[in-house]
């Protein structure tokens, strides 16, 4: 693949990301939102907190696709792609966790409600545990991959592990938290952000562009890391 034909060197989607994120911030803070009990204005976090998790999921998907591509072709380039998409996915997941902690502190942790007053009741939240397990599995991917010195062995083992890690995402963040009772929105009825009956049509106008914008920002950062890695590999060979 020649450098100029590769998507990593194109700039139109980087511009799109910038435009969508500016739109997200301006429209996200200005549009009228439904006044829900307990949530009130914090529902605007949908454009930031929820987008982190969507971005993480998309980046992990891109990562696992590249792992499979590696296993099909044994081209080391795809191994590098997979690793960096996973890293940026983890960063987005951690940001989702951190923003969720802030949001939760002012909505669930209600001092007037004894059921959610203490930390122990919140720490039992299945969504938090599930997301923590998923992220820890991905940490193990990085540890595993970067601890093997042999290039081919590293790529092959980590590609297979990445597929397992991706498979574990589904029970730990999509299935198990949905079965157990939870304070977090989105139980057995499905994802609240994707449910057309739940989310206000006005908010959808900002939410979908926000998901695309944040995801493209993650892809942008990942491509920079990939380009640096590819350059390093090239210099090692020469």
């Amino acid at each position, binding site marked *: 693949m020649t450098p100029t034909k590769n998507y990593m060197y194109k700039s139109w989607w980087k511009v799109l990301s910038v435009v969508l994120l500016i739109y997200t911030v301006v429209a996200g803070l200005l549009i009228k939102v439904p006044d829900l009990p307990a949530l009130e204005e914090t529902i605007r976090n949908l454009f930031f907190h929820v987008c982190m998790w969507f971005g993480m999921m998309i980046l992990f998907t891109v990562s696992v696709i590249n792992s499979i591509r590696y296993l099909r072709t044994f081209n080391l380039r795809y191994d590098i792609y997979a690793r960096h998409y996973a890293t940026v996915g983890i960063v987005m997941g951690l940001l989702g966790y951190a923003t969720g902690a802030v949001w939760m502190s002012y909505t669930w942790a209600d001092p007037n409600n004894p059921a959610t007053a203490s930390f122990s009741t919140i720490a039992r939240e299945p969504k938090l545990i599930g997301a923590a397990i998923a992220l820890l599995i991905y940490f193990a991917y990085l540890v595993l991959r970067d601890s093997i010195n042999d290039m081919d062995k590293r790529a092959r083992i980590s590609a297979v592990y990445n597929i397992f890690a991706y498979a574990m995402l589904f029970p730990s963040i999509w299935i198990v938290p949905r079965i157990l009772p939870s304070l977090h929105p989105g139980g057995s009825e499905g994802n609240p952000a994707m449910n057309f009956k739940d989310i206000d049509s006005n908010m959808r106008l900002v939410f979908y562009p926000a998901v695309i914008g944040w995801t493209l920002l993650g892809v942008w950062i990942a491509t920079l890391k990939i380009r640096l890695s590819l*350059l390093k590999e090239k210099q090692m060979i020469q």
Partner: protein
Amino acid sequence: MRKISCLFALLLLLLSTSMLHAQGDSNMGDTMRSNGRIYVVITVILVILAGLFLYLIRLDRKMSKLEKNN
């Protein structure tokens, strides 16, 4: 290149401070103070985003230059 960007940053800084002083009695100030001053928050977030994007663009350019030299 470096000198030009330094100059540009300085200009931006000067402009922003003069804009802040002018806000006291102009319409711009009224807009910024309306609706519980939410526009101030938006401006702050946009400044952070602008910084982040400029940083990424610079990194991107640097990478392109390195790739050309190799």
